[in-house]
Each structure stands twice: as structure tokens, then as C-alpha cells.
């Protein structure tokens, strides 16, 4: 948590921005890993592990753009996800024939617009005060979405059900199909975002994050950079929200995007590493896989003899201890830990890759 405290300007400067010198080979390895599940082909792996993992990684990326790169604190991530999810749903519902990827992009754009509005206070306030503004979004938006039944097409329960997933002639309404779609969209958005943070926009964000006065002095407009960060961040979160509703749960309800979800995304970013693309994926893996792993392990180890409620509580304790442990070992996040491991233990991988540019 200390990493996001704004009291000291240097505190937000937790991690330097990585330049992706070894990208192509990294990417090849990633694709192999991404395609591997198709060889295994288990519903559980697809629908319960990989899809939420990818979506939460994307959400982490969204917050990381804002907090890790541009240095603006936010507790409204889940609200922007909700905007994306409901906008995607309504676009598909009210514009029949609109292809699903366009509806999702549209959801992202609506979320970006919302993010822009709630980002306006960032022109005047910083740090904790900005948290208050984003927290307002977090409380206002789910309330708005559940208050007016227009958003959920008049469904009493406030839950909307995603229509079947179809992309032209392709029927993606299977666990593997949903995974493939999620993977494609997450890969595309991640690629776009990583280009953005390495370009002029990213440099402007980092300059503003590290010292906005100095940034203004060298000709960067801090206000514009901040608002652009809010828009991009909310766009990514909106797309993640759309995916959450459409490819993961199949239902949308405002309560699913509560403050807990915002905290979850914040933890992903902090544990994974602020100001890093890879860190989001590591952080999401930690947050998604560890509780599931603990729960399965507890089921195997304890059997049916021990009180199930006790086992549940022990898992929560272990999870909390592990979070503290990793933050003590490496306050800059898992990505730094991985970097260090690559530099020392697995030097041979690193050296081979850096020699190979193509």
C-alpha cells in the first residue's frame, strides 16, 4: 500500500519503465503458452481460470496506465468496468446487427468518456483527494445503473443476460471459443497499450508522474496528459468489463462491480508491479490462481474430517500472509522479482534473447 501513498512525490515512482528489447521471442513463448490450453481442452481451465485471469490482467493494465504510468490514483476501476459492460450490452441490444467486437469497442469508448468526466478533478487535485473523486464514481455509477431499469432493459432483478456470442459465421459460445475471443481482445489491447506507453504519450505520462512541474517546464501539458491517461485507462477497463460480462460470467449486474473489485484490481497492480505491462499478468495470476490453488489443496489435504468453515478461514489467512510476504520481499512487485530471477538464475535465456533481434 505504501507505494501508492502520495505524500512523497518519489513514492509513486516505484518502477522504471521497461523497454521491450526482447519482445519478439517473449511473444512467441507467450503464444505457445496461450495456445497450450487448446491441447488440454478442459472446460474448467478455460471458463474458471484462464478467462477471468486474462480479463483481470487487462483490468490491471487499465489501472496501471493511470496509476503506474501517469501517477494518478484511482479507486473507481470497477465502476468503469461496469460502464463498459452495460454499454456493450445496450449497444448490442439497441443496435441490432452491430458486430460484437464493435459493441465492445463502443463499450470501451463510453467508458473512456465517463473516465474523462471523473478525471476532470485530477486537473486540480492530487493523491488522496483524487481518490475521493474516483471513489465517487465507484459509488455513483453502480447506483445509477441499478436505479434506472433502462440500463438493464427493464429486468427486475437488475441482472442482464449476455446474448449468444457470435462473430459472423463463428459460434464462440463454447468455453474454448470464449477463451479464444478473450485472448484475442486482451492481446490486441495489450499490444496497443504497450505501444502507447512506449510512445510520446507514455513519456508524457511518466514525466507528469515523476514531477508535473518539471513536465510542464519542458513543454508537456500536464492536464491534457492526465485526462488522456484517464480516457485510455477507462477505455481498457471498459473493454475488460465487457469481456467480464460477455465472455466470462454471461450475466451483468451492477453489484458485481463493487468497491471490492476495485481493490482487487489495485492489488493486482501493486503486487504485479506499478509501471509495468507484464506485472499486470503476474499480479492477476497471483490474485486469481492462489486462492483457487489454496482451496483445491485444502480440499485434498483436509479431506472431509475438518470443519469446512475453518478450512475456508485458514485459506484467507494464508492468502493474506502471502501478499504481505511478497510485498516485503519485493515491494516493486512480482515483475521485478521475475526480472531479477531472469538476470541471475536464468542468465542463459536472457543472453540468447538479447542477441537475437529478429
Amino acid at each position: 500500500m505504501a507505494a501508492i501513498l502520495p505524500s512523497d512525490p518519489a513514492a509513486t515512482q516505484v518502477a522504471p519503465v521497461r523497454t521491450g528489447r526482447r519482445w519478439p521471442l517473449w511473444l512467441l513463448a507467450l503464444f505457445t503458452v496461450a495456445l497450450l490450453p487448446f491441447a488440454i481442452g478442459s472446460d474448467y481451465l478455460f471458463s474458471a481460470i484462464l478467462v477471468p485471469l486474462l480479463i483481470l490482467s487487462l483490468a490491471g493494465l487499465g489501472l496501471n496506465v493511470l496509476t503506474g504510468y501517469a501517477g494518478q490514483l484511482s479507486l473507481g476501476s470497477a465502476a468503469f468496468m461496469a460502464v463498459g459492460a452495460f454499454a456493450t450490452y445496450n449497444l448490442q441490444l439497441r443496435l441490432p446487427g452491430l458486430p460484437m467486437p464493435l459493441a465492445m469497442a463502443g463499450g470501451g469508448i463510453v467508458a473512456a468518456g465517463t473516465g474523462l468526466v471523473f478525471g476532470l478533478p485530477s486537473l486540480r487535485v492530487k493523491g488522496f483527494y483524487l481518490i475521493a473523486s474516483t471513489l465517487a464514481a465507484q459509488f455513483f455509477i453502480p447506483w445509477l445503473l441499478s436505479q434506472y431499469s433502462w440500463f438493464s432493459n427493464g429486468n427486475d432483478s437488475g441482472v442482464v443476460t449476455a446474448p449468444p456470442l457470435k462473430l459472423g459465421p463463428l459460434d464462440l459460445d463454447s468455453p474454448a471459443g470464449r477463451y479464444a475471443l478473450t485472448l484475442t481482445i486482451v492481446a490486441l489491447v495489450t499490444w496497443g497499450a504497450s505501444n502507447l506507453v512506449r510512445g510520446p504519450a507514455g513519456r508524457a505520462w511518466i514525466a507528469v508522474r515523476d514531477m508535473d512541474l518539471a513536465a510542464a517546464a519542458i513543454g508537456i501539458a500536464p492536464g491534457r496528459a492526465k485526462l488522456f491517461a484517464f480516457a485510455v485507462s477507462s477505455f481498457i477497463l471498459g473493454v475488460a468489463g465487457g469481456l467480464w460480462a460477455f465472455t466470462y460470467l454471461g450475466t451483468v449486474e451492477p453489484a458485481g462491480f463493487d468497491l471490492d473489485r476495485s481493490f482487487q484490481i489495485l492489488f493486482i497492480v501493486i503486487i504485479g508491479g506499478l509501471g509495468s505491462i507484464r506485472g499486470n499478468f503476474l499480479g492477476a495470476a497471483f490474485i486469481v490462481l492462489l486462492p483457487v490453488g489454496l482451496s483445491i489443496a485444502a480440499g485434498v489435504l483436509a479431506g472431509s474430517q475438518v470443519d469446512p468453515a475453518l478450512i475456508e478461514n485458514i485459506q484467507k489467512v494464508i492468502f493474506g500472509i502471502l501478499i504481505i510476504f511478497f510485498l516485503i520481499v519485493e515491494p516493486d512487485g512480482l515483475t521485478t522479482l521475475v526480472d531479477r530471477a531472469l538476470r541471475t538464475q536464468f542468465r542463459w535465456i536472457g543472453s540468447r534473447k538479447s542477441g537475437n533481434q529478429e
Partner: protein
Amino acid sequence: MNNSRSKPLLLLAAAGTLLTLSACGKKAEPTQEGLAPAAQGKAQYFPLQSYRVGPYAAGGSGFFGGFIDYMQLVNARGGVNGVPLSWAECETEYDVEKGVECYERLKKSSDGSPTAATNPLSVGIAYATLDRSTSDKIPLITINHGRTDSTDGSIFPYVFPLQLNPYSEVSAIFNFIGTRSGGLDHLRGKKIAVLYHGSPYGKETNGVIDRLASRYGVTVEKIEVPHPGNEQQSQWLKIKQFAPEWVILRGWGVMNPVAIRTARKVGFPTDRIIGNIWSNSEEDVVPAGATAKGYIAITTHPSGTNFPVLQQIKAEVIEKGQGNLADPKRFGTVYYNLGVVNGILNVEAVRVAQEKFGHRPLTGEEVRWGFEHLNIDAVRLQALGAVGLVQPLKLSCADHEGGGAVRFQQWDGAKWNLISDWVQADRPFLRPIIEESARKYAREKGINPRNCAKES
């Protein structure tokens, strides 16, 4: 520099996308095929998406405790026609994402025993696993709750809001208030406040409450309590201002005792509060202490331990030290008994289906047939030792609810006392609303309704 790097990236991304998309088309079929072959395993398997921690732990541990104890009783007596029951548990904390993860984790048993049905005991989880259950061909049982329009089995073949769907619940409460006011036509001009849990479960009835209100000429004020409902001062002040004749409490978990206590604090009479089907347990009134005296709630099944089936569980499961409850004092409470009722209905569906498909572990598809042909009459209830615990129930392709009747009970400070006979919901009035909503769902999802007239 940037450009030269992004070109291979782009190519790779495009190639990968194509590969993935083509692969998923091929892979989609075998995953579904895996479920089709007839049952191979040796037991009938129930995945249990239970919850024993969090704000709703009382409901979850009681319900699943009763459910598991009943299955243990069945096993102790040699199973269902010789087929033993097996189950596995996964903690959901009443959380939708965890519930989905648990559904996917548990939907296939580890030893190949076929899955009978899922019972998530959460409207949110039921909504999220509805499509999955349907495509996996596993019945989704939402006893006394769930998505109301899933009562229409022609559009929701795998979903069963057994006994009492949310609309019936509200309609029965209106009928009860009508009787108390000297007839339904005396309701005109009366004021009723509805205090509901801010969740899909709580909101489910908002539309039908408006329809009932305009039908009977009642003024209704609906007030939401955000989940989990630890603080309700402002809501009750609003109720006080509105000054209704009755308050319908549509609560869940910790919200209920807080509501009862806050009502007393603002001076609203407790015996004018009617709790719904998830505000009717001992765990809802005991924490409120003496203030809960006089509180009324509906129930589909009384609490108590005098039913023969409960005595059998006591003798053959609990006294052998195999009971599932951490606190044995909760034996015979409302949630526990609901778990037993749920166990009876699930096992009866398996039994009915076995008569058609043979005395062996059945697939979810076959058990679904069993649920649709459930017909529990007085004779069967006698044999089950559940007279007065389970209401007579007859399901069909078109009707996945079956009963639709409740009784009213009042808390006297120590136990629940029944204060009414069975009060029936106005099901003919509700049916068109349900069908309309189901048809809208079918249109949104592109579902072709089954023809129930042709189903055997």
C-alpha cells in the same frame, strides 16, 4: 526502431489469432460430446456450491448441513435403489465469480460418477450458471428462490425454482394481508412498504409488486438496503415517515435481525413486519433478542424435529457422529429443514427417473426428466416421513415450480408458531407475467421453446 519491432509483432498477433479461432471451432465439439455417453460411474453425484463463511454463512451452513445429512441418511439405508449418493463441496461465499469457479470445478465428479443436479442457493450464481447448466445438461435447482420466469420449463428446460418462486411468494403475502384486512377488496387505499436486499435476489420481485399493488389499489414504497445490510437507520426512518400498515421484509442474512432491531428503534410495531421466505429462520430473529417477539414470516416448511425423517436422521446420522452441523443445536431449524426438504426433492427426482431409465446412476438429462415428473402426494409424503414438512408437489414440463403455497408463522420469543393454514399464491394471475418474461428471454437469447404438449 519502433516500427521495425512492431511489424513482426503484428504478424505474430494475426497468425496467433487465426490459429486460435480455427482451433476453437474444432475443439468446441469434443468438450460437449464428453457428457453425452450414458452414465459409467458407480454413484449419483451432487456438486455442492456451498457457503460456510461470510455474511450469509448461517443460511449456507444450515441448508447444506441438512442436505448432506439427508444424503447420508439415504446412503446409510443403501442408497437410491442401491445407487449410493456422492458429493463434493466448494466454498462460494455467496459470491458470483466464486460460484462460477466452483460450478466449473465440481461439475464433473473425480471418479466419473454422473452429475445429478446443482444447488447453488444463490440467485446471482444461479443467473450466472444458467446458460452453463443448460449447455452442460445439468439441472439447476433453486428451491424457494431463483429466476421467476424459469418456472416456464418450455424455455428453461434445466432450471427448477422448486416449491415457491419469488412471484408466488409475494402474491401469497398480499393474499395473507388481504385476509387480515377482511378480504382482498379491503386492501384498497392501504400502504405497504417493501424493504429489500440490494441484490438480484432482492430486486427480483419489484416488478410484480407494482402489478399486485395496482391490482389491489395499494400504495407501495420499495426501499433498498445495500448488501449486506448492517445499517438501516435511514431506511427505517423513511418507512416511519411513509407510515405503512405493513412492511414486507425481503431480507437475507444479517440484514434481517438488523431490520427488526431498527424497526423497534424507530417505533414501528414488530408484528406488522412480514418476513419473506429468506427472512424466516431462527438465525434471523434470535440475534434481535426480545424485540423480535411478534415478528411474522412465511415458510414452506416448519422448523422442528418431530418429523419422522428428522428423527431418522438423528438416529442414523447424527447420533453416529456423522452429522454435518458444527453446532448440533441447529438441528431442526428452518435452514436445516430446508436443506432436508431440498435433499428429499433431489433424491425423489432421481428415484422417479430411475423408474424410467433403470436403477443405475443417471445423467443430468435423465434426472431432469425425473424433476419434471416429480409427483409427491400425501401417500408419498407419508412414506418419506415428511408429512407437514414438504408440501404436495407436482411438476411438469410447463410448470417447474409445482407448489406455490406458504404458511405464516410468528416468533414468540423462543420458537416459531404457525398462525395460518396453507395460503396459496394467485398462480393464474402470475402465469401470464411469467410467460411474457420467459418469452422475452427466449427472444434475447434466440431460444426455440419446447412444445410441452408433445413432451411425454
